[in-house]
């Protein structure tokens, strides 16, 4: 009980670090995720996050060899994640452009093959003498408890970068997501815009790996933005709400994971965001089920009234 109070009241320094870190992560994921969702690239984010796994493993192995069992270094692991994640996305695009295979199938292939490769490498790492592979599981299922202040800072910086880029290119990205060919027609390079957007998705995914894990990080990109759509018909407002829901889910999930023993934070964060999604689905003031029922009933009554007259 005392521990519960300690966690929730944020008296603990470590808890404060974790809460700030995941809050920044939730914000950034909500913001970037909204554009990813509207660009209809939601599953591309999933392919990307799964494709980071072999990169993490290879980086881990290389670092073990060079540093001679000197433990793991987050920047090295995350660099590996970026490299193989981007490689995965490029593979999807290559398969889609060069063969007649459709994008969803291409993503299915890349996602499973990269994840399979990662799993195989992880098996090898576990057999490697003297190497401590325990940290790798945190990348799969998410482990916020081990978040250091450096990790939190890193996420904070990425969140600020995302915010800056989205503010600077808000109108361009809005046009890209709404009407790609018109964007080209008025002279914007949609290839460049797509690279910027996927670059942001890559950044927030990679810094989110530790907290949410690579299987579930996609949820933090999609669920908050999908929930936000129930509350508003305006893109700007949707981005803000998505950030808010993302931060709430991430913080809520991290706290639950800290209090309830043996729950990976990835799972608790996803379940918390699903709670937000359910609330939005039912109570959302623009597209929620209740408001739709009410408008339907109003229309029915109007028709009945007119029929009587």
């Amino acid at each position, binding site marked *: 009980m005392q521990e519960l109070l300690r966690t929730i009241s944020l008296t603990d320094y470590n808890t404060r670090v974790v809460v700030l870190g995941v809050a920044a992560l939730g914000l950034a994921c909500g913001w970037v995720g909204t554009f990813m969702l*509207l660009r*209809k690239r939601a599953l591309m984010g999933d392919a990307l996050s799964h494709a980071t796994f072999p990169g993490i493993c290879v980086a881990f192995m290389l670092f073990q060899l060079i540093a001679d069992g000197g433990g793991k270094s987050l920047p090295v692991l995350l660099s590996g994640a970026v490299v193989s994640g981007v490689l995965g996305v490029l593979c999807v695009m290559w398969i889609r452009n060069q063969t007649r295979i459709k994008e969803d199938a291409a993503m299915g292939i890349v996602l499973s093959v990269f994840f399979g490769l990662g799993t195989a490498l992880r098996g090898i790492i576990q057999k490697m003498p003297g190497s401590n592979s325990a940290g790798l599981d945190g990348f799969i299922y998410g482990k916020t408890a081990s978040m250091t202040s450096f990790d939190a800072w890193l996420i904070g910086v990425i969140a600020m970068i995302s915010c800056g880029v989205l503010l*600077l*290119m*808000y*109108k*361009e990205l*809005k*046009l890209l*997501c*709404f*009407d790609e*060919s*018109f*964007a*080209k*027609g*008025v*002279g*914007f390079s949609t290839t460049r815009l797509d690279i910027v957007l996927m670059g942001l998705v890559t950044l927030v995914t990679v810094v989110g790996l530790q907290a949410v894990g690579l299987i579930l990080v996609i949820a933090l990109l999609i669920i908050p933005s999908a929930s936000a*759509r129930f509350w*508003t*018909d*305006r*893109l700007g407002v*949707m981005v803000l709400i998505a950030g808010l829901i993302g931060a709430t889910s991430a913080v809520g999930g991290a706290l639950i994971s800290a209090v309830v023993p043996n729950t990976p934070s990835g799972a608790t964060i996803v379940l918390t965001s699903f709670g937000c999604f359910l609330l939005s689905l039912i109570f959302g003031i623009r597209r929620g089920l209740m408001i739709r029922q009410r408008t339907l009933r109003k229309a029915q009554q109007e028709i009945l009234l007119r029929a009587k007259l």
Partner: protein
Amino acid sequence: MLWDVDLDVPTGTLVGIVGPNGAGKSTLIKAILQLVPVLAGEIRVFGQPYEKQRSRIGYVPQRESVDWDFPVNALDVVTMGLYGKIGWFRPVRARHRQKALQALDRVGLAELATRQISQLSGGQQQRVFLARALVQEADLYLMDEPFAAVDAATESAIVQILKDLRKQGKTALVVHHDLQTVAEYFDYVILINGRVVAHGPTPTTFSPENLHKTYGGKLSLLEEVAQQLREKR
């Protein structure tokens, strides 16, 4: 795939692009905009390459080409017509929105400016797209089936705007499906079926022989017209 395109379009005219489904009408427009690769040959707009004339071209894509569920309102969409002029990284300002509102007014939708675009009827959505092109203040307008599945009010509004544009000396290339109204709406016509079958002033070019050449391979002209009449109902 579209072959054998060799044509000049006179400025200051309303040009109808006519042909059966899959004939390459949209492809012709997209080729001018360089949205599809041009494998051979060149396209010049007012005597210069497309890149130099981009700001002089207004574009009305097919209505189905976008997701109307997108979280923007009518005014937002029309304002997008100005993004090219505003340029990279610069924000939209009040005067841009003012201009967009004027364009919305021109197509008779000023009252619906703040309405989310999925709450508009198909005809109203088409007029929003038209307003977005108008706000570009172009000299050449490329319109991909602006008359597809619209109500009578929208159809007459679009025709009126086309006539206004012609009066201002602008040129419009319009992909058109309804053979009944071609002679009425357009001064100049391009008949397409995989290649340009014929092009020239409507009175001489839009003839039964040329139409037969254009549609003959697939359906007899009469059947086609009858089918379109049925679709209209």
